Every structure is written in structure tokens, then in C-alpha cells.
């Protein structure tokens, strides 16, 4: 071991502290230095913070029975049994024990990785022909003249101009609309659409940010204005951070519903294959109207269309905006709804065996960066259902 080698135990300590959320600034910097040193380090770091990875590897680790092995070793190699070895072995105090409260937190985190004997013995078998990679960032922009531009193919830093509006892809890959000149008809209609398995983020000329989820489309005029209101049409799901402009209320129209806002953060879920439209407010105020009915809601509330009426619910907003952060948040979500979320992100079709009940409930959280088989294996581990992936179809059975 040379002096130049990083102190392995220090790195392990830092990673554990990070997992517990207990890094101070100095330690954070130290950890980041190690991460940047080598892509392999960053890869290891992200694996060690991926609960799915941790879970399966801890299961593997716990397969080994140190006690049984030692008993065998003792019997074979240690000839004289002096004072009888105490049955309960006192474990070494860990160098990484960080104080009582921290140990408790550490323990609680670890309980996560308890292993049920039956999970060891019967690892879920997701039979698959091919695995499915997770969705990506991408979208298609359709201009007024019908020309289509694949945004993932547009180079960062590139731009095009259309009737006074400049559409550019920033260095970081975000699509931005700007007013290039004041005159010119900004009334040309554009459509930004994502296919299954894509998401995209766009910045409109007024400064509004929109995150578009998979299989969705947003239609708007290049300058947004219609009768002194900023209007977009949404089919699918998007999360909005609307820039304040009191003279021009921002309106989102979908499937006969319209949401009127004044500088707020909210999420609209209006997929045609979902039974309801759900508008969830995170910050600010919105007013949702449909066919003469109107409901104004506060942050943490959600309006759901129910047939011909509007219902207001109190919700956990993380549940709704999970996709924007790159996660599936599927707590207490109806199983088939959860599967629809998965189908959109991985661009697959779900086929249910008749025996699968409708009312399964599923609880949990998963990163959208995982391959499909990883996500399905985790669900299978709960015993809710079994899956088989064949090309672009997921077969669900009991």
C-alpha cells in the first residue's frame, strides 16, 4: 500500500455519513474530491446510494453465515478448546459509530435491509427476453409550418428563428423561447411533444418553466398570447412554474378543463387514458374551471375532475411531482395506475392476466433511472404480482 492511496476507511466513513445525511461541509468537500477523481468512483457512489442496488447486494452479503463457518473452522483447526468460547460474541465497536443518535439513525436505515429467509431462497424471477432501458430527455417541436425538430438532436447552443421568436437550446440542453424582435406575428402555433419514454423541460418567453412528462404534448402560440391571456393546451402531464405577470393571467387548457393561474407552481395530470384530470398546486393560487364550474385551491390541494364535477382533495405533493425529480413515487397508489406510470416512462405495453385483481395497492418509491427489470423485480419482491417482459410488452400475472 503506497502513501498516495486514498484512505479507504475514510471514504467508507464519508459514504456512510452521506447515507445518513450527516456530512458537514468539510467532509462533503472531501467526499466530492474523491468522487470527481475518477468516473469509477462516481459510479460506485451512485450505486451505493441506490436503494435497489443496496437492497439486492445486502441480501447477497447476508447469505454468508459467519457463525456456522467459524464453528466449522474451530472444530477443524483449533485443537485445544480452552475456556469454552462464549456463545454470544461481543462485536467490535465500530470505528464508524458516530454517537448514540447517529447510531440509532444508522440502525434505522439498516432495518431497511432486513432479509426475509424466503426472499433469499426464492429470488423473484422476472423472466425476460430483453430488458428495457429507462426513458430519456427528449421531445419533438412541431412548428407552425409543420416542420418537426427532434430536440434531442438539436445541438446545444443551436437556435432557430421564427416570426420574431428565437427558439434556442441552451448549453445545458434546455429549450428556451425568447423574443428576438418586438414586431412580427408571435401567433404561430407550436407543439412540443414527448413520446413514451421521454421527458423535456422548456422555458417560455415570459419566463415560465414547464416540465413535460412522457407521452404528453403542449400546444401554444410562440408569444403565448390569446386575448390578453397566456394560454397553453396540454394533453398528458406537465409541471408548471409560471412567471408572474398580473396583466396576463396564465391559463392551461386540457380536455375541456382550464386552469387559471397567477405566478405559481403546479402540476397538471391530464392523460387521456387516466380516468380523471388532476391539478395539484404546490405554491401560489390557481382557479380550475370546467363547464361553468369553478374551484380555487391552495398549496397542497388538488382538484380532480369527477365526471361532470370538480372535487378538491388534500394531497402529498411529492406523490404527484415525483416524475419531475426523476422518481416514481407510488405510495398508496392503485397498482394499475402505478403500472401506467411505468408503461409511459419505459414505453411499453402492460397486459394483465385475468386473475390479477384490480384493487392491489402498492407503496413505495423508485428511481426512474433503473432499468425496467429492476423496477419490476422490486415489485415482485412484495408478492403483489409476477412479471414477464417480452420485447415491449409486460405480462402481469398472479
Amino acid at each position, binding site marked *: 500500500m503506497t502513501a498516495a492511496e486514498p484512505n479507504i476507511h475514510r*471514504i467508507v466513513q464519508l459514504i*456512510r455519513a452521506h447515507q445518513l445525511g450527516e456530512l458537514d461541509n468539510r467532509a462533503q468537500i472531501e467526499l466530492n474530491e474523491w468522487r470527481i477523481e475518477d468516473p469509477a*468512483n462516481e459510479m460506485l457512489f451512485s450505486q451505493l446510494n441506490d436503494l435497489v442496488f443496496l437492497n439486492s*447486494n445486502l441480501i447477497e452479503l447476508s447469505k454468508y453465515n*459467519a457463525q456456522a*463457518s467459524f464453528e466449522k473452522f474451530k472444530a477443524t483447526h483449533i485443537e485445544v478448546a480452552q475456556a469454552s*468460547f462464549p456463545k454470544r460474541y461481543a*462485536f467490535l465497536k465500530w470505528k464508524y459509530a458516530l454517537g448514540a443518535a447517529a447510531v440509532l439513525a444508522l440502525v434505522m436505515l439498516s432495518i431497511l435491509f432486513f432479509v426475509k429467509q424466503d426472499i433469499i431462497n426464492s429470488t423473484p424471477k422476472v423472466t425476460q427476453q430483453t430488458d428495457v432501458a429507462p426513458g430519456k430527455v427528449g421531445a419533438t417541436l412541431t412548428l407552425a409550418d409543420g416542420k418537426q425538430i427532434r430536440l434531442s438532436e438539436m445541438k446545444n447552443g443551436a437556435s432557430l428563428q421564427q416570426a420574431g421568436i428565437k427558439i434556442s437550446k441552451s448549453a445545458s440542453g434546455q429549450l428556451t423561447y425568447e423574443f428576438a424582435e418586438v414586431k412580427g406575428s408571435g401567433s404561430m402555433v407550436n407543439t412540443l411533444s414527448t413520446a413514451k419514454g421521454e421527458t423535456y423541460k422548456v422555458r417560455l418567453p415570459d419566463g415560465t418553466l414547464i416540465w413535460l412528462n412522457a407521452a404528453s404534448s403542449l400546444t401554444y402560440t410562440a408569444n403565448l398570447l390569446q386575448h390578453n391571456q397566456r394560454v397553453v393546451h396540454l394533453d398528458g402531464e406537465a409541471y408548471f412554474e409560471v412567471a408572474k405577470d398580473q396583466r396576463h393571467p396564465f391559463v392551461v387548457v386540457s380536455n375541456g378543463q382550464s386552469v387559471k393561474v397567477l405566478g405559481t407552481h403546479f402540476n397538471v395530470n391530464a392523460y387521456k387514458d387516466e380516468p380523471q384530470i388532476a391539478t395539484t398546486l404546490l405554491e401560489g393560487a390557481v382557479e380550475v374551471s370546467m363547464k361553468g364550474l369553478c374551484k380555487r385551491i391552495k398549496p397542497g390541494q388538488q382538484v380532480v375532475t369527477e365526471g361532470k364535477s370538480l372535487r378538491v382533495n388534500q394531497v402529498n405533493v411529492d406523490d404527484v411531482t415525483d416524475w419531475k425529480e426523476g422518481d416514481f413515487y407510488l405510495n398508496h397508489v392503485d397498482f394499475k395506475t402505478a403500472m401506467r406510470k411505468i408503461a409511459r416512462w419505459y414505453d411499453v405495453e402492460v397486459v394483465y392476466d385475468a386473475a390479477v385483481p384490480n384493487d392491489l395497492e402498492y407503496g*413505495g418509491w423508485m428511481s426512474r433511472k433503473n432499468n425496467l427489470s429492476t423496477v419490476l423485480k422490486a415489485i415482485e419482491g412484495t*408478492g403483489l404480482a409476477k412479471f414477464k417482459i417480452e420485447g415491449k410488452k409486460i405480462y402481469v400475472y398472479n
Partner: protein
Amino acid sequence: MIPKEDNFEQLYMNYYSALCYFAKGIVGSVEEAEDVVEDVFLKIYQSNRTFETTDNIISYLYTATRNESLTHLTRNHRTKERQLRYNAELPQNEQSHINAMIQSEVLRAILAEINNLPGRSGEILKLSYLEGLKNADIANLLGLSEQTVKNLKSKGIAVLKTKLSPDIFMLFCLLYKFR
């Protein structure tokens, strides 16, 4: 000087699993990994070697395990295929060895805490989830009433909920169907 026996036993109990996990990455099978690690510990036992610091022991253990694993690979004809795969897939350099060690050590630290759950609630959670015992069995084992077991279990879970971040607690519920 710490008596050799205590030290060795502790070392074995604490590092056996992590070293097997680490070795399996090289030799490819659970059984071979266990053989490798047992050989490593035998050599240590027979060598009468003492170490100055825990850090040194740990580095030594992993390096010895890696060397022993590679020896097993060349020795065992059945594993020739795995050796070829190992050579092809993994760059045999110091860096990846170090990272493999880090990975094993982080996992070991987590699993070790599972075995060190404090208190009665902890004991019951362990029996319930680790051993898969039903409440009635736990009650019998510990000489408690089933109701007491249920209460202690709920208490443990309630504390757990306050100590874990919501998404981690959620995943725990997801994976272990706890309600």
C-alpha cells in the same frame, strides 16, 4: 497484548461475510468464495501474525482474499471460464481493487448494524424480519405475551418512521409489506 484467540474470533465473525462477498466478485461462486475466505483465515491463524492497527488488518484481509481468489482461479480448471470473463470484464488494477473494497466495506457496515439493534423492540424487529418469525413464535421464544410482542413491534416501527426519511421508510414498507 490482546489474547490471540479473542482477536481472531472477532475478526472472523466481523469480516467473514464481507470477504466472501468480495471474493465471489472474483471467483464467481458462493461455495468457492467461502473456500477462499476460509483459506485466508487459516493462513492468518497459522501465521501468528499481529497487526498494529485495525486499518492494517482490514487492508491485509482484502488483499489476501484477492490474492487467494486469483490463486483459486488459476488452480481450478472448472473456473477457467470465469477467469477469462474476469480478465475481460474487470481491469486488474489497484483502483478497481480499492473500489471493490469500499463497496464491500460500506455494505458490511450497514449489515453489521442490523445485527446490533439495541433494545427489546430491536430484538423483536430482528426476529420478525430477519428470521421471519410470527408473533406467536416470538412470544414463545422470549417468554412474552403475543400482545406485548405486537406492541413492542409497533413501537419499534413507529420509532423507525421518525428516524428514517419518508422515502426510505416508504421503500421499507414496499419491500416488506409492513402496514
